[in-house]
């Protein structure tokens, strides 16, 4: 749940900022906005200063610096000069915060969206791979090629039915 849903009363200016934040996309997965990803934790305005609180997804994700810069550019374009962007680590970001809309967009883009969290992060060795649905033909008859993919957030899979390789946005 993000702050727009939490706070019933938000000012017109906050609303405008939230709306603009929805337009900022993840540089590595351009179909997802940073609000779809659940990266923006809060927007606060006090004494004329705007504070945007963001949380990192994966520790090593280079996209975070770019996202931060894009937020800066967006605030400038709204004519806001007095602001700060702060990083908040706790509670730790999880793929559960990705919006349903975001998951739908990922699938349409050809990336399998993350499964529910309880299925992963099992430290047992050689465990049965979780069933991941092929974003192309919707078959669950797929297998994992590598736990690590082209970016920190993805694993490599292949569909055993349509034979297409695909990325899976892994649970976190």
């Amino acid at each position, binding site marked *: 749940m993000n702050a727009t849903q939490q706070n019933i009363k938000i000012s017109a200016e906050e609303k405008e900022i939230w709306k603009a934040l929805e337009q900022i996309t993840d540089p590595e997965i351009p179909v997802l906005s940073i609000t779809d990803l659940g990266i923006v934790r809060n927007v606060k305005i006090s004494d004329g200063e705007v504070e945007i609180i963001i949380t*990192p997804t*994966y520790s090593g994700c280079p996209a975070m610096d770019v996202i931060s810069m894009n937020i800066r550019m967006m605030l400038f374009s709204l004519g806001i000069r007095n602001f700060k962007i702060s990083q908040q*680590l*706790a509670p730790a970001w999880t793929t559960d915060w990705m919006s349903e809309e975001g998951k739908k967009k990922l699938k349409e883009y050809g990336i399998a969206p993350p499964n529910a969290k309880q299925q992963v*992060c099992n*430290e047992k060795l050689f465990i049965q791979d979780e069933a991941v649905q092929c974003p192309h033909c919707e078959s669950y008859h797929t297998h994992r090629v590598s736990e690590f993919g082209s970016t*920190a957030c993805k694993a490599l899979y292949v569909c055993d039915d349509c034979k297409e390789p695909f990325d899976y946005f892994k649970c976190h």
Partner: protein
Amino acid sequence: MKENLINYTLHLADNALILGHRNSEWCGHGPVLEQDIAITNISLDLIGQARYFYQYAAQLKADGSTEDSLAYLRDNREFKNCLLVEQPNGDWAKTILRQFLFSAYQFFLYEELRSCKDKQLAAIAEKSLKEVNYHLRWSSEWVVRLGDGTAESRKRLMNAIDELWMYLGELFQPAVYETELLKEGKAADLSKINPKWEQKVKEVLEEATLPVPEAVFQQTGGKDGRHTEYLGYILAEMQFLQRAYPGCEW
């Protein structure tokens, strides 16, 4: 004392940065594409974790230090990483074993640290633990594959055990800043981590049909800045640009 917290935070940062840097040397040289990607992804995670710790240390120091100055402008004796993480990559077996032994340590350490009394250290640990989970499982599976694989892969892993085992004792010997900080409830208790780590290592080595080594003489000193010759070479390469062109950005 704030000094202890700064030293401990730097120790955690240096561990992650140096191992991340070592792993990054594999970029473009991995045995197969997927594993090249895996080891460099692990590098990225570790360097990302190091950044959180350096940012926090810089904030605590409040003397104009930044995450970059702490990584790029400190010298050999100021680095507080364990000797294990600075050891050369060797072959794939040695890199895998080093990763496994360290990931198992980091896993139980972060697990403890996430309930420590320092909120920022706890938050970094909670965040990073999810990533270490992947590192531990991946490296464990590789130890099993190599140990229980061919005669050649087994021989190489046995060599790696011989080369790395002497650097493990240090992991569980607290430095003065750790002991002091633990009294305030702000560090991970190494005596609690040790048995869990031993159990995990034993399980995986047994699964890999490898003997658990007998006690050997243990090297120490890394946590207090006394390093093997290898760290200097890492720093020379890693810090060259900032030393030659101070403040350079791209």
